[in-house]
Structures are given as C-alpha cells and as structure tokens.
C-alpha cells in the first residue's frame, strides 16, 4: 500500500494536498465588448436581453429596415461586430412606427 495523499493529514505518514492555488492570473479588466440596443422591435424576447448575430437578426427581430433601432443592430453587425445584444422595450403590431 502506498502512502496516502489526503486533504487533511492525520498521524499516519502521507502527503497533505489541498489542490492548486492559482496565482497565475493578472488583475481583472473591465469588459468593453457588450453593447445593448434598447428599442422597439417586431419580435424578440421581452423578459431579458438577448444576442443577435448577422445570421439570426431577421429571425430574432423580424425584418424591419425602416426601424432605426433595427438599423443600429444591422449597421453594427455589418461593420463586423460578432453579436449585438438587444433589449426589447415595447412590442408592436404592424409596420414600423418610425
């Protein structure tokens, strides 16, 4: 039988080991990659903000090219931003009011 490796060593011979303490990280940094468009969209979750990508914008928000809030999302995605968060502030029926 080999010597025991344990988290709290008793009288018996063995090795006490409580896992590694990680000191390798640097100071934390503010995250500057999250932007949320607050607006009036045709559809989308109303209970929380959600990410929209170039591939999902039409399905998640409904095609709404005259809506300025939709344009903001679309333009940012066109510029190469991988995803834009959206927070729906109102629901709406029918065509854009803007």
């Amino acid at each position, binding site marked *: 039988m080999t010597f025991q490796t344990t988290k709290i060593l008793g009288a018996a011979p063995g090795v006490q080991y409580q896992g590694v303490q990680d000191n390798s990280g*640097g100071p*934390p940094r503010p995250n500057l990659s*999250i*932007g*949320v468009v607050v607006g009036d969209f045709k559809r989308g979750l*109303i209970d929380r903000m959600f990410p929209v990508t170039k591939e999902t914008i039409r399905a998640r928000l409904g095609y709404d090219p005259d809506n300025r*809030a939709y*344009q903001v999302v679309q333009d*940012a995605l066109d510029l190469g931003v991988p995803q834009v968060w959206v927070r*729906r502030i109102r629901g709406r029926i029918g065509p854009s009011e803007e």
Partner: protein
Amino acid sequence: MDGYTLPTYSINVSATAVAMGAAVVDPVLTISYSMNDVFNGETRVDIAFTARTGVVGALTLKDIICRLVWRDIDDGQVLYEVAGHLGADDQIVGGIRNLYMAAMQNSVFDSFMFALDPMPNPEQVFLSIDNPAGNPRSSWKNANFFSLTQEGVEGANNLVTDEYLSEIYEEFAGGTVRPTYMMLTDISDLSVLNMLLGVVDRANNHLMIELDGSIPPLDAANLYESIYTPDQRVTTYYNGNKALPRDATNPNVPKVFRSCMGVQFGYRLLRNAATDQNGVPPLQIPIAGYDFPINYRGMEVGYKLTEAVLNRLAEVKIIPVRFEERWIFGDVLTNYSRTDSQLYLSNAAEIETYTANGVIQIIRRNLLKPMGNHIRQSTDQCKEFLDQCVAAGLLVPSEELDGLPYQLSITPRAGREFDASDVIFNRRCETAARASYLTTTVER
C-alpha cells in the same frame, strides 16, 4: 413576468382538424402555451405528427411524436422548434423526451402544457390526420405540417410599466451580462430614458442616444435641450443626411434618413478589441473624424449644417454626421456641461470610466480578505493595471499630479481600521483636439 400579462395560445387537434383557438370540435389534444417572445403577427406555427420508428406492435402515445416549429411568415426562417412524444412526463423513449419536457428545455416558453382528453387511440387520431389514406409516416421529411397563424397581440404596445422598467434596470445594472454601451434611438418615452440614466449612474457605463435625423437639426437641438442631462457618460448623435436604404437593389429608390449610431457603436467595439500586449484597449482614440468614415451608399446632404447650426448642435452637445472629405462623425463631445473639463471629450470620458471600473473591480476582488492582504494586493494590482493604462497612452502626465499620470493610495480608513480602506485615485486622462486657432502673417 411582472408588469405584463403574456398571451396564452391554444392549439387544438381532433381526428379531422388542427386549429389555433377554439375552432376545433371535440379536440382530443390541446396544447396551451405562452411565450416570452411576443410576436407582431408575422409569424406562424407549424405542427405535425409522426410515429417513432422501430416500434413493434400497436403504437402508444409515447410512440407519437409531435413537432412544433415557429417560423417567419415571409421567409420561413425557423424561430423556435420543439419536438417530443405525447407519453408520460418522465419517459425518455429512444432519446426523445415528452413534449412538455422538451418545451421546458427552451426558456422562451413562460408556460407550456398539453392535455389529452379523452385518451385517444393514437393511430386513429394523430396519424390519420397526418395521412388519412396511408400508413403512419415516420419521417419529418414527408410529414404533413399544418400551418397556423399565431396572431399578433393587442396591447403589446403597453409593455412599458414601472415594473417592466425596474426589471430592465436590475438586469443592466446588476445582471450577469452587463452592457458597456447602451443605445437608444427613441427619446419620446422619458421613463425609458430616466431608467437608462439610472443604470449609467449605478453601473458607470455609457449611454448613446441618437436623435431622429428626419427632424431638422435646430428642432432636434431644441428638443434635446429640453431633456438634456449633463453627464460625461452620455453621448448624443444626429445624422440629418440621406442615403440609399441598406437593402436597396436599385439606385433610383428614394433615399432615406438612416441611423448612424450602429456605425459609431461598431467602431467602438472594433477599437476596444484592438488591445495592446497588456490587454488595454486604445480608448484614447475617439471614434470621430477622418479615420472612422460612414460608408452608406449614395449619401447626400439632407439638412444643411450651416455654421450657426453647427454651433447650436455643439452647444447642446450633439455630435452631427457631416462631410469632411468623407462622411464622418463631426465631433467628440459628451453631454458634460463644463467645456473647461476633459470630461466633455468622449475619449477622456471613456478612459475615466474604464480606469474607475478597473480599480473598482480590483478592490471588489480583494474584499473579504485579511486587511493586510487587502491593502497590499489591491495596491499592487491597481498599480499594475494603471501602469499598463499609462503605457497604452490612456493616462498622461499632469502638473497637478506632480508630473505623474496618476496617483493612488489605498490605506486603512481612520476610525474603521479593522474593516474598511480608503482608496484615493487621481488621474489625468488623454484628451482630444477639436479646435485649432491659426494666427498667420505675411512678411516682407
């Protein structure tokens, strides 16, 4: 959800019909659900039934699989999808969950239930309705999907309640995903604007506002002046120029006023991602001027920005889009009211929040530790972080700080030496040139 009652939909299925609502006589299956996604009516839900493959003997309810697919009416894109069998909740058959359990995997459903009454003969009902003349289908490829319109919601415009805004406030200021930038294109509802300004105060982040470009610039300035908040973390944009619609396929279609804030936001995120070797973003570069063009097709002047108009826009801290060799963001102003302060410049304002938030984050990480560790580690980590900000060019030397770019001290607080520290952090942010005074002569 607080502050709003979600609509509930019912899909009824009988041996001869499938319909949304109560139009079906003697339904044997009723699926009721409410969703956190409120549609405006341009959506349909498709429903189909198939039999599980490889079943020996008579089919039971757990062998009948129901699939619901929500789609965009125009292009058929799938929005949400749920498939599950109609057997008991706790049964997983061939890797397939019960329909209710499958729906509950998707957080879009606020509620979901299905009821079978009376207990039907599966083959007689669900498969005969799918394929009355033939054998039960086992492939979705051949399944007969019934398309039902999920009606738009009357009253969906009334989502803005105090409770609803409180939820958003808590989400932005205290949620797990906290936005650095919040963008608003409609300032007609002051309760929304006030809520976002509250988030700015608590989360120390930035609010970007865009005024409607179809409004003449002086009217926009007057409108904005009435609600203006003198805060360096708020920036306001105005694009009174026209361009072709993004998806225009013909150059002769009428040009429209287009939003510019998505471009501003996009450039900011791209800049923020261009970090140096220490991971510090070049926030000293303001997103304005020649290096950050707006490349909409067919841009042309909508409202002329005369000298008087430009002065008026600057007075109320509105950044216009204008033509200077190319279409650009024509200023670097924040909403800060004092023009003798660095905080009325957008890059300095971003540096101010970035460095403050960085220090706050480090202090928070070192709370609830032995006091000695708290002081030592907070000081070391803050200095490392701020030295990196100096190296990146965010902070610059100041005479007021004895020629240093920042001063930091973290010490036990007098009177609360055992449980509190005093953090004093002074810095000088990089600024931006937005004016130049030329004096010139000719000489003999």
